[in-house]
């Protein structure tokens, strides 16, 4: 097994782990965390493709690397927005989870994350 393949499987497992946390953890903060783990798994897969594309004296293909750098920054932006929404939700309702509720208002809040 090559090292690229090793981290490729690693990335696949991380995506699965993150997805599991995203579904099963009730606390929104934990969902955000899981989402970040999921994202890092996807980035790692990109990294594997970059590593396999090593050519012309470069250790890895620079294009996927640049994409991942952009992705990390965008993931951070999304996380910051999600955290701000969560803190506001907590201020309004005292909740740290999104409760399934039939009323329209909390339905909207649930939809935001």
């Amino acid at each position, binding site marked *: 097994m090559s090292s690229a393949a090793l981290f490729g499987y690693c990335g696949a497992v991380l995506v699965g782990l993150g997805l599991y946390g995203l579904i*099963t953890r*009730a606390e929104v903060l934990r969902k955000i965390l899981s989402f970040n*783990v999921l994202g890092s798994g996807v980035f790692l897969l990109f990294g594997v493709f970059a590593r396999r594309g090593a050519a*012309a004296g470069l250790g890895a293909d620079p294009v996927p690397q640049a994409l991942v750098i952009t992705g990390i920054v965008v993931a951070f*932006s999304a996380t910051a927005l999600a955290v701000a929404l969560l*803190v506001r939700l907590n201020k309004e309702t005292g909740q740290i989870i999104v409760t399934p509720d039939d009323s329209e208002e909390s339905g909207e809040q649930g939809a935001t994350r």
Partner: protein
Amino acid sequence: MTLIFACEVVLAGLLLAIATWTIVARTAFAAIVLFMVYGLLLAIVWVALSAVDVALTEAAIGGGVTSMLLMGAATRLRAPKTPVADVGLPLKIAAGLLCALVTTVLGAVVFFLPDVAPTLAPLAKDNLAASGLGNPVAAVLFVFRALDTLLEKVVLLLALVGVWSLASDEAWGGVPGLPVYARPGPILVFLAQILPPIGIIVGIYMFWAGATQPGGAFQGGTILAAVWLLTMMARLQDLPAINARWLRLLLVVGPTAFLAIGLAGFFIADSFLAYPPGIAKPLIIVVEATLTLSIGVTLALLVAGPPERLPQR
């Protein structure tokens, strides 16, 4: 060769163990600390994949400021005393099966990847000289795919607008609610005094080195953001009100310079975001320098959160 592989096996095992622990940890607080370690470990993984640029970004943003952000959120949330019940066992099993399936499919994709991987590396390498830069990743970011990078800056600013818009009406234009040390002790104050000069030098170095070797505006900007957050947490410096003129100016100077030089490309080169040959490198340095500042300020304000109180007179 096998020694490197042994290193990597240890690394991969540790990474997966920490990731699993992050997901299953009992308290959110423990999970966030685990996530910090996870982010720093991931940086080493990126080094093993010979993506040093990504390693720097991951350590700085993925592990660094994301953890600072989450830690601040955990502090601000009024957590209930009783632990939160998660979904029931049947759903857990179903979710577990689904995730196993996703992992298996992705694993199969990795397994059945073609032997000869498609690559743009030779293309990037061939055109590297034209960009005047020595770092292929920086060349992709600022020359070959400059539009992506420009839009990414816009995303950062939009995220900040989104975060600010969650402020209550009374607090609009006020001071962000970053949790700070209630009573910073002398040791902390000393650290907060001694680290900023070092951080600023390292930040400028990262941005400067980015032209020829791994590094760049993101990595440098993140260090500046972290330094600024440290001085604010230690209360050496007050948090700025978000309607301060200088603050707004710093936020937009980088993207504006990028856009202006991009538009100038219509006239002095052949198209949008094209650089005239010969002065490409100086132009990119100008863009990167202003972006480093803007990124630093934006990241710090994203961590600080929406405004919560009006500035004191």
